[in-house]
């Protein structure tokens, strides 16, 4: 467990910097005053501006991280994650369709539902018992659904007014601007409950890692267990999307980063590491996106996209290198 101290230290450091830095730079004295007396610029930043934003980023990042790690462990492929497998694009498309057709529902709910629908579609199209490469088929179907949804989203984006389009953009890219404690509480509760559900399924996950034959030999109902785990992972992603928008690449990157930092081996430790790394990536990317260029507040999704795209390309070159060797 010694590897986890690095991860925890990094998380604390990033959280601390996130509270200090941004459009308005706080001094340590301001922060201390805000914490102890509840007054001054530090208090306002903690309570209203950055506190809820950092808390939301932490919990949503952890949810994304858990979701991606479950996908990667089940499908045994580092390319697997809800964000690259159509979930994000589905969330974005749903929001744009809702705006285009004047559907009056909370955008967060629509985004989450769109993601869930995309995931369901991927599952329905790729599920077929006895397939030789089920994981790869699922990943490729996910990519295909993602491209289709993005294409449709772009098409319907053209039909929106400027105001609607700028609201839609937040739900295509993902952003942590203007988060309240309600958002932080919402995702903390959702991630907590789903995290407990995952904990109950850890032994099933440990059996599934040994391959379907051995898992069934150990008394597991393989297909049912897989479906339950994937459903939990998809709901975690949906919960995170509802507060942060479909931020790309956090779910994809969290698992490998967490395992790399901690050296975790067992499923429970790997999931914890992925949750921590997801929180680290999302909070860190948010910090960068609002402090890198003075006066410019980029949506966090742009930053994770900039970080994640090279990672994805590296994974792809490695994946295809392996096939040829």
């Amino acid at each position, binding site marked *: 467990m010694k590897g986890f101290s690095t991860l925890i230290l990094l998380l604390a450091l990033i959280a601390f910097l996130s509270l200090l830095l941004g459009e308005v730079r706080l001094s340590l004295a301001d922060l201390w005053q805000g914490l102890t007396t509840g007054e001054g610029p530090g208090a306002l930043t903690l309570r209203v501006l950055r506190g809820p934003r950092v808390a939301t980023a932490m919990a949503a990042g952890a949810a994304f991280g858990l979701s991606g790690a479950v996908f990667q462990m089940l499908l*045994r492929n580092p390319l697997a994650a809800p964000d690259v497998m159509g979930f994000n694009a589905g969330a974005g498309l749903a929001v744009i369709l809702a705006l285009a057709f004047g559907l009056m529902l909370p955008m967060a709910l629509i985004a989450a539902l769109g993601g869930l629908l995309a995931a369901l579609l991927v599952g329905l199209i790729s599920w077929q018992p*006895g397939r030789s490469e089920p994981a790869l088929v699922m990943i490729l179907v996910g990519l295909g659904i993602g491209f289709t949804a993005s294409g449709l989203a772009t098409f319907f984006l053209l039909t929106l007014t400027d105001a609607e389009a700028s609201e839609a953009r937040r739900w295509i890219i993902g952003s942590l601007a203007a988060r309240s404690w309600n958002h932080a509480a919402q995702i903390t509760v959702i991630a907590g409950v789903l995290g407990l559900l995952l904990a*109950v399924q850890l*032994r099933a996950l*440990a*059996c599934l*890692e*040994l*391959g379907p*034959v*051995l898992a*069934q*030999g*150990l*008394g*597991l*109902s393989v297909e049912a267990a897989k479906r339950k785990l994937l459903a939990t992972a998809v709901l975690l992603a949906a919960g995170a999307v509802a507060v942060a928008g479909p931020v790309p690449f956090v779910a994809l990157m969290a698992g490998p980063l967490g395992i790399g930092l901690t*050296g975790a*081996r*067992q*499923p429970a430790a790997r999931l914890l590491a992925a949750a921590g790394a997801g929180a680290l990536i999302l909070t860190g990317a948010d910090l960068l996106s609002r402090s890198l260029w003075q006066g410019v507040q980029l949506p966090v999704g742009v930053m994770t996209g900039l970080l994640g795209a090279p990672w994805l390309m590296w994974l792809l070159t490695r994946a295809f290198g392996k096939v040829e060797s």
Partner: protein
Amino acid sequence: MTSSALQAQGLGLGYGARRVIDGLDMDLPAGKVTAILGPNGCGKSTLLHAMARLIPLQAGHILLEGQDMARMAPKTLARRLAILPQAPLVPPGILVADLVRRGRAPWRGLLEPWNAAHAQVCDQALAAVGLTDLAQEPLESLSGGQRQRAWIALVLAQATPVLLLDEPTTWLDLPHQMEILGLLRRLNRDNGTTVISVLHDLNLAARFSDHLILLGPRGLVAAGAPDAVITETHLLEAFALAARVLPDPVSGTPMVCPL
């Protein structure tokens, strides 16, 4: 008179419309080492998978210690019969001891914590395969033979009276094949575990088994003691192989010498 560990009655197996095995009746003795032999594509592995209830039966029944397997709960079955597949997946970075612990899955309640009794079973399994000293090593760092012994320790930790193995010696060189087959026979002699393996090497199978099942392209060719099964006529029927069968100079069991 020995009792049966597994019995097949009128067994039909296949994929879709393609029947691989049809009308098979077979009796595998309890407390013995049995090898299932036959040419590629004759349905050996399919038969083994059916005996672990991994594929649906198209016809007939399989009885495990006299009870119809189809009606058993998954956990009940997993406490009575274990299967080691040909190519199980290696979880990244897993330690040998952690791999073996996973064999206890069917014996643990949902929220039941790990306890000393489970740990003892795992220690015994590791000791039985001679990997006690390597327990804290990553599985990936082990040699092929050691790795196969680690997988056997996992199914031993499952503590079942019946153990099925799908080609446990494939990928291994001859000394390691001998080592694995010797280990399986020792486990059988020490604990009375029924060991049933799909094997390719006829001579090693004859040497290390009490009972052989020989399948051919048209189903069961012969079943029984090695002397009765490995004969020139049976080899011709199962493999279309012309061969002489001589007594093995070391063990006296039948030895195949292809012509």
